[in-house]
């Protein structure tokens, strides 16, 4: 467990804040002086999970580094909706890279800081799943291999949403996208394809890898904080539902993240130097239907018993593989 569980405190650590918790167990998001790294006025859709996840992560990193932070941002939704010329919603030093080279830019900024003797300034590179798992993958792997002092954060919304919802190598089996239409005998995206980048990152044996979800704020903040306490290449992948691409109600964004975790579809874990060191347990297990139902991209899957059982099989395998249920 990446954070302390406090039992019987009305809402424990499940809510953003809790006046009954000790100060050290409270979240950055619950404080009045959080940095609001991603401020109001950005042009993300209503209920955007990525906008939420980015503020959660960067605010935590700002607090952990005493506000000495530079972020390099790959092209993608996060870049487009935050910085339409001449506006910016970022309140931190922030630089836009190409679609595919955020990790390399991060490496360069970290090197420059080292040369200037400012190793107290920490570097984050960030992007969506397209810019990370597909287009920026070579630069990312290089950054891992060289163990550059950069935290790479991937906001995983499982597709190229900004350009019109195309499939990425993070799109799950069965999902409808503009390029994987629900037609033919095997509608939607292929099963048994795509990449599990957190596990690939672990295969590089870098110091720290974690997956997080926007519904588990305490867990997410603890992971970012821990990442910032380590030097070298680090990778965090945050699950951020996309109302536009997934065909879900904006109000369901946090709930969908929760259902993904509770069904076992999105396992939350931490790995250090190639070994898994912790998993976040499922609190109240739900069948995958509960997660699929609120999303139009899976509407056909719910009517297709073979596909539905394939999705359930993925969840069950995750539960077994990562030990997601309490003993």
């Amino acid at each position: 467990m990446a954070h302390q569980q406090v039992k019987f405190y009305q809402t424990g650590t499940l809510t953003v804040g809790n006046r009954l918790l000790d100060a050290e167990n409270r979240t950055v998001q619950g404080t009045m002086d959080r940095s609001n790294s991603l401020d109001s006025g950005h042009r993300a859709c209503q209920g955007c999970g990525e906008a939420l996840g980015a503020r959660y992560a960067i605010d935590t990193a700002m607090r952990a580094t005493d506000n000495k932070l530079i972020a390099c941002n790959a092209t993608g939704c996060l870049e487009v909706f935050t910085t339409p010329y001449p506006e910016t919603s970022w309140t931190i030093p922030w630089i836009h890279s190409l679609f595919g080279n955020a990790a390399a830019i991060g490496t360069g900024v970290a090197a420059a800081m080292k040369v200037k003797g400012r190793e107290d300034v920490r570097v984050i590179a960030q992007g969506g799943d397209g810019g990370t798992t597909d287009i920026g993958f070579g630069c990312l792997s290089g950054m891992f291999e060289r163990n550059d002092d950069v935290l790479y954060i991937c906001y995983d919304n499982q597709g190229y949403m900004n350009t019109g919802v195309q499939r990425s190598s993070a799109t799950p089996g069965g999902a409808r996208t503009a390029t994987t239409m629900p037609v033919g005998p095997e509608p939607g995206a292929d099963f048994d394809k795509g990449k599990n980048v957190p596990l690939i990152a672990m295969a590089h044996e870098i110091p720290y890898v974690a997956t997080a979800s926007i519904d588990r704020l305490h867990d997410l903040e603890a992971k970012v904080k821990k990442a910032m306490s380590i030097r070298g290449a680090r990778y965090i992948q945050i699950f951020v539902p996309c109302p536009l691409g997934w065909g879900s109600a904006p109000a369901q964004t946090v709930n969908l993240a929760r259902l993904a975790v509770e069904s076992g579809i999105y396992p939350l874990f931490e790995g250090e130097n190639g070994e898994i060191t912790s998993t976040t347990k499922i609190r109240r297990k739900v069948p995958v239907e509960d997660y699929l139902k609120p999303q139009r991209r899976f509407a056909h899957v719910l009517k297709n018993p073979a596909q539905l059982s394939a999705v359930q099989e993925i969840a069950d395998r995750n539960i077994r593989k990562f030990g997601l249920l309490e003993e």
Partner: protein
Amino acid sequence: MKNTKPYAITLDVGGSLLNKTGSWRTERPVYLDRLPPCNETCPAGENIQQWLYHAENGEYKEAWLEIMKNNPFPAVMGRVCYHTCETACNRVQLDEPVGINSVERFLGDQAIINVWKDEPGKPTGKKIMIVGAGMAGLACAYHLRLFGHEVTVFESSSKPGGMVRYGIPKYRMPNEKLNAEIHRIQDMGVNIELNTKVDDIVATKEKYGCEAVFLSTGAQSAKLIDIKSDQSVPSLSAVEILRGIEDDVDTGLRGHVVVYGGGNTSIDVARSAKRMGAQSVKVVVRGSQENMPAHYEEINEALEEGVEIVPLRSITEIKKGHLVLEKMIPSDGDRPSPSGEFETMEASVIVQALGQNVDESLFENLSELSLEDGVLDVDINMMSAMEGVFAGGDMTPSERNVTVAIGHGKKAARKIDQWLQGEFQKDSKKNEIVDYSMMNTWYYSDAPRTIRPTLDVVRRQTGFAEVVGDLDETNAAFEARRCMSCGNCFECDNCYGVCPDNAVIKLGSGKRFEFKYDYCKGCALCATECPCGAIKMEPELI
């Protein structure tokens, strides 16, 4: 010529604030306080959610003061209230209701131990007389003192407390707690004249220079029915028995005791008889056991203690040391019908517990006031047909229990205060009741209910020690923390956290939150993720 344009473009921080994304919105979130079901159902009008909020944090005095705004008897109510709040509690649908009653009792006892006090209001110079020092009368006196009025309470018995003292046995209501709470009210300057029966309301009012009157004499005379008898079995009334137990006189409850009636008083007598060494105790009721008006917890505890319930029987005759019982046939309506079949039951004493009447002697000299259907009618302002004479408690038409009486006392005090100022105010409109479906209960931690340690059955049967045990400091706060704060913000910061647009402002501890409508896109994440249902989405008017 050299190109002087910069390679990179720098954007000014805060630039996006020019983009007022609030214009995208079709629905807007609003904060509201909904009415929690516990508060809604409390006959004394306690703000239960609010005092549990203080108790959660160990702020017991603040919690106690919050109770005292509506009810000056937390130690009494924590023992004898039938806690309809717990039946209504939304937590029932998640696991088990919050043990509101036991926390109230804990707070009441803390106040007695620590001698917490309430101060009277600024003197107004106005005098009010109260007839009857039961719960309604004393609650009214307390609230009138808070308003700063002078209060004299006239009580015909030798001790104050009414039916709580004389009608509820000590195993449910220890005297020292009752005395302590009454003393606290006396310490505020309420004058109680004991052993003083008021025969003439008008004369007494004039003699003491009072401007208003509150009548709360209760319903203390036993309702008795004539049963054909050869006098071989003594017949007593429940009211005298319970009074006798309080005054430590021999009540004659021994041998085979039969109690007739299915209400709480009947069960009180039966359980007392068991404690006083009766050989057997049977409760005979005309209807079925399921339809008994007594509270189920009390019936269960009585059964555990060895009291036997004999349902669907009517006592028709007393003959040769036995009772003749007629079997009754249950019917769809509330009245079972006679079957014509008879049986006998051995009895050493029979106690009638078939209800109580209001004493009419108080109204003999008053033409304006009279009882209708055995009770004194009052209007919505608790005022009787006689100007300036208010009434409440068991003598007025309503459910007869302690909590209702305390609620009447409070309401009457407020109405008397308004009447003295010349005009009745309308009661403020109640908020919408918060339903379980309006909440996001995923956020509440799982916890089993702290079960009050009950003394074992044997110990209960041999004395008048209190039956229900106490919460201590650690588990009282724990029990309070199980409150879901239905419909009322408890500052969990969820709305402030989950807004993707940073459109919620946190105003600081105790000050809650505000929306930045300039930027709120109306996604409703805040309303969906609010655990307690304190945010509502409202359509934007175009």
